[in-house]
């Protein structure tokens, strides 16, 4: 059992007060945060709830670098969620029943189609390694290379390499699933 710490976000320094427009941070980040969490957990309401929890904590803690802090904390919480065996089972059940309990497209066939697409994206993302997926999701959420490096504890120069690998694998995995789907239909 090694002794090391995971990524720790930059916190507030004692004696220094950085002025952050939190309304602006909310407008630019909150939806991305929900989206990021949703693609890690696949439960929209839970992603929304967790994003709220993270943002409220940020408002209390007032970190210097809000976006990196928000995504680091969100990532930690989501990772913890994912480790829970029971909850993972529940999420899968929710995913299966999303058409019943989640946002309702007007037509049943649309709902089925959308659910298939969500499932396809989820499976394609699962084809990536944890680190590659994390970096890709952070990029998708709008973080810069520097911010991704801070959240993921990677060197800024390694982000491009990780993203290149993640994107290629995602496209390949998604393409394979498209073929499977076409063959099945």
């Amino acid at each position: 059992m090694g002794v090391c710490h995971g990524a720790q976000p930059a916190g507030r320094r004692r004696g220094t007060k950085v002025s952050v427009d939190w309304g602006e941070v909310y407008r630019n980040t909150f939806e991305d945060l929900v989206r990021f969490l949703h693609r890690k957990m696949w439960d929209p309401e839970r992603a929304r709830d967790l994003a709220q929890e993270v943002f409220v904590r940020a408002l209390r803690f007032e970190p210097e670098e809000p976006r990196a802090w928000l995504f680091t904390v969100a990532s930690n919480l989501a990772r913890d969620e994912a480790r829970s065996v029971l909850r993972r089972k529940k999420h899968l059940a929710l995913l299966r029943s999303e058409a019943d309990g989640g946002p309702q497209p007007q037509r049943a066939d649309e709902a089925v189609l959308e659910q298939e697409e969500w499932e396809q994206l989820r499976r394609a993302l699962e084809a990536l390694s944890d680190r590659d997926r994390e970096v890709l999701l952070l990029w998708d959420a709008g973080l810069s290379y520097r911010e991704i490096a801070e959240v993921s504890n990677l060197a800024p120069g390694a982000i491009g390499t990780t993203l290149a690998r993640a994107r290629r694998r995602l496209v390949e995995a998604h393409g394979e699933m498209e073929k499977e789907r076409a063959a099945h239909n």
Partner: protein
Amino acid sequence: MRHITDGELHAWLDGALDLLPDGRGDEIREHLSRCSACRERLQDEEEVRDRSSEIMAGLQLRDLELPTFEELRERAAAPEPGASVDGAPASGARAVRLGGSVREEGPARYRGPLKGMPLAWAATIVLALGVGWMGGQVWQGLPPAQAPGGPGDAEPSTDRGLGPSGDFPGDRMGDGAGSALPAPEPLGGDAGAAAPELRRVLDPGSLSPGRPAGPGVEALVGVRSIGAAPSLRESVLTGAAPAADASPWPPSLAREENRFTESSLAVPGLKVLSVEWEEWLPGERALHIRQLLSVGDTLELRYLGMLMGMEPHEEVRIARKAEAQDAGVDRPLSPTVMEASLPPGWNQVEMRWGRGWLVARAPLPEASIKALLRSLR
């Protein structure tokens, strides 16, 4: 100059060349201007990048009602859950009041896995489980003549499908003295009146909706903690310290009682995020408590070998296994399985806890985890 790597091409496409070290960004710009092979690769990688973005953007979350910034700010300004009003660290006993503030925050609040069950209840369960469990040691230490209880209050034992003697499988796990003692039974009066409320809270079905309700939790907590010590039961429900003159114990045991009241299965001062049952391996059910550390990390506590929520025959089997553990022969396998799944940066600490095991995991050094665990006792 060497050709450009795929990663560098993506950094170019993402406008992040300047982050590359040692002036590599300028080299790449120059190289691309004169290397047709790399320009072709750049086109390929651009297609990959665009297709990836297309896949990721293909589906959007729709119709999900998000909180406004004002709502979040209002919530942030409210007293922080996990800290008391006077600023002192929260203890398990105070969680009831603190959980109340969470409950008042309306639909925007964070909901743990016990959806619909306010965390105050969860904290109460944690405390009650702790009291009920550790209370067993008090009963074992009581001489038979001082064991509280009346002859007409044996109903909970029969509820569990046990024998007419009303003894508990858990009593068989100890050193043998426990089985010779009469089972602790409700005192009657107000203790019996309060029992239904705790039973409702501690219904195993409410802990884990998908699992059929078993009698174990009710039996261990509802009978032992309520029946044995009304003042203890009172403190579990209210979070208040029991009145000194209300203790049914001899003076030496009354001190023990107070110690149990202050004890908790959760680390005092850390917000309880969730309480749930887990089963990593068949027959090794664990009570899993998640608590919030700083910056979103969590402390995971898993209590194995607690005889709650199991079928009676299962309890007996686990009890026998626990006896073997006491002799140092056996050890649950779950901690090993858990350790194999430890994420990078996390550490795991195992220790005996009463008749069972406590497994704690957190992204902290082992010494720090042990320091946290010391506050449990």
